[in-house]
């Protein structure tokens, strides 16, 4: 049986009256490339922030590699890497200084931190501007640097919040190469992304959150089978108005699965009649 890397029990987060994350029970097995999807404002970033200790849950429990995050925050953080929404960079350091700093903050000795920082800069093709401050990096360069800093201590789990947002095809290729390499070596990756094509290509398992609730979880095949079964059932019972059949032999894409689960009803004709 595969060990559990990430699990949550009744994870809940309120912001005043808003229930941003509602009783989420999540299971991510070790070694999975896990995509966490949802429409805007569904609770993806809030969940990833709670999983990485950047935000306190209102209720519920988080376990990372079998350790309770609330009870063992430092031990858990030692085993994970994070690229949060704002990338968490120190703008007035150079790339090399930042990676060196990150390595030592994650407990590496001076020599190892310096050696890995150097290798990561080369791998990420950031070694050409040794004197450039991070604040002067382009967005793509900053993303690559943030990822390099998140992996410098060789974490067992990597959390990425929208890693491909605003990144060009070349930088995106570098990031994907690094992530694939980590998966090959047994790491677990948990990422949120709006780019469903990338998630479909990279992730083996997916969870979908909608209005704070976890509405689907499993491998892509499991999700596809679930949607197909639901569509067939709805058609047979003629219960769901607007239910559409899935053409036989056609394999649903992740985008289609996502839209069927979350529901992306087109706006009514009469709305915004003044537009155009």
């Amino acid at each position, binding site marked *: 049986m595969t060990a559990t890397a990430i699990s949550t029990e009744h994870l809940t987060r309120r912001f005043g009256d808003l229930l941003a994350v509602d009783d989420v029970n999540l299971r991510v097995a070790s070694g999975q490339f896990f995509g966490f999807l949802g429409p805007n404002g569904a609770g993806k970033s809030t969940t990833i922030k709670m999983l990485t200790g950047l935000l306190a849950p209102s209720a519920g429990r988080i376990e990372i590699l079998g350790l309770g995050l609330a009870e063992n925050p*430092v031990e858990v953080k030692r085993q994970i890497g994070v690229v949060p929404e704002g990338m968490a960079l*120190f703008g007035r350091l150079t790339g090399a200084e930042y990676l060196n700093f990150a390595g030592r*903050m994650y407990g590496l000795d001076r020599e190892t931190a310096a050696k890995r920082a150097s290798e990561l800069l080369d791998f990420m093709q950031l070694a050409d501007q*040794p004197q450039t401050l991070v604040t*002067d990096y382009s967005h793509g*360069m900053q993303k690559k640097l943030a990822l390099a800093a998140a992996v410098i201590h060789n974490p067992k789990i990597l959390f990425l919040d929208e890693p491909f947002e605003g990144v060009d095809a070349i930088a995106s290729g570098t990031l994907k190469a690094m992530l694939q390499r980590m998966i090959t070596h047994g790491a677990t990756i948990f990422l949120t992304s709006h780019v469903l094509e990338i998630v479909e290509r990279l992730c083996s398992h997916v969870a979908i959150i909608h209005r704070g609730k976890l509405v689907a979880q499993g491998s892509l095949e499991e999700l596809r089978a679930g949607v197909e079964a639901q569509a067939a059932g709805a058609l047979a019972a003629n219960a769901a108005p607007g239910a559409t059949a899935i053409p036989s032999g056609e394999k649903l894409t992740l985008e289609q699965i996502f839209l069927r689960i979350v529901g992306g009803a087109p706006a009514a004709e009469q709305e915004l009649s003044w537009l155009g």
Partner: protein
Amino acid sequence: MAWLRTPPEARGQIAAIAKVRWQLFVNSLRSLHGRLELVSRGFIGLGFAFAGFGGGFGLGSAAWFFVSSGRAEWLALLLWPVFMFWQLFPLLATAFTDNFDSSNLLRFPLSYPSFFLIRLAYGSLDPATALGSLWLTGIALGIGYARPQLLPWAALVLAAFAVLNILIGRMIFAWVERWLARRRTREILGVVFFLILISFQFLGPLVNHFGKGSPPAAGHIVSQLLPLERLLPPGLAAAAIAQAMRAEFAAAFGAFLLLGAYGVVIGWLLHLRLRAQYRGENLNEAVARSTSRNGKSAIRPGWKLPGFPASVAAIFEKEFRYLSRSGPMLFTMIMPVVVLLIFRLTPSSSGNADAFLVRAPDLAFPAGAAYALLVLTNLVYNNFGADAAGIQFFFAAPVRFREILLAKNLAHAAVLALETILVWLAVCFVFRRPSLDVTLATLAGLFFALLVNLTVGNLLSLASPKKIDFGTFGRQRASNTTVFASFGVQIAVFVLAALTLLAARRHGEIWLATLIFLALAAIAAAAYALLLSRADQMALARRETLIAELSRA
């Protein structure tokens, strides 16, 4: 002036911006931090109101005296300080100014005249404009009380002078912001600004020196400078009023026109900058594209701090790297030495407070050390301000917040130690070598004051953080709550230390001060340790506010 013709929708746009500013203010009150800020602003506002109305009354009385005694030219003596304050206060006291960032407005279909007016109007909502306006009103009322028939003309001239002040202030801000947008020019500007500040500090002693030494020479310099002074805005405004009082209307009108000409030139310089901004000028520094790779990059290992964990050493190193990249901050580090030089230049017979150290050179080291501590305030009371979005890294990394604070405090203490050595050497060179008992008492006092500052600084850094944006000017570098609380702490510590030292000196038992300071330091150390032990819980409890405040764009 066709470019100043506002389109019909401009009024609605300006009203919408005013409304959004109001809504931002109201929404800020939803958080405790926002409410605390409002209370602090209330207290600061009271201080400004006192200065505004009190100053207005004082300046009005002086204006009444000058005009009623037929010496209206002397109004320049009142207008010059108002002018200097109006222009220098926003530069010196950015803690009290909150420059409006209008770059976000460019996405809307805002005409250039509307953009210009908005920049001018909202950028002028600062204490300097409020105080300057109150003081000029006081002067106008004083003139009107002395010569009622002169009031309309004086009010017109002073109103023009006020508009000119606003234009100059906005023009300086707009250009300074342009220079600050690039790091290299930012550093150069910081150094120039610092040198100007230092030269201002030397002005007093030099004037004193030349004034006492050779009065005819000083008189000659003043007489040579006077024609120039009359051509500058405060002199012109005073001349326009004085000439009108003497019924020399043509000359008065000429001076007023010249004042207007200044307004046109300054307005044009402001227009150049704002037009560039309006057209979408982007001053971001792009990284040069490199075509060649030099093979593997070798990186030197980080610093080692014996006796401390690697994380503490890493943060310590990071703090020093940040400091070394802030030219202006580095220059402020030598300020204590400069201040000692200024004190030394002041003649002992002048009777000024400045000459105090010449008469009591044994207090030079304590005074210099106290100034060094004051310089440190910039760093310790907003510990995470420069980290900005990097704060998330601290929360994501396997490090306790007590270690983070300890590392930052160690870095700041090392800076103070370095500065104290510099001050001690400067005192030896400029005054005389401080006696052993004074040195020990000063070091003990400094230790106590440092611990108090670090304790309160850590608390405020967690409770009331403020992102420091190096690329902008006139935005606060600390929250109002922090500014207000740090003032209180500094005053309390300095008064306590000064009283202790002076009492011990009067009794000829300086070692008593050492003992008292050490006892106080022990109490402060206990408070520091207590706060550090609770730092993790405090940081966790405040993490959302810290991340939101420091990571905001």
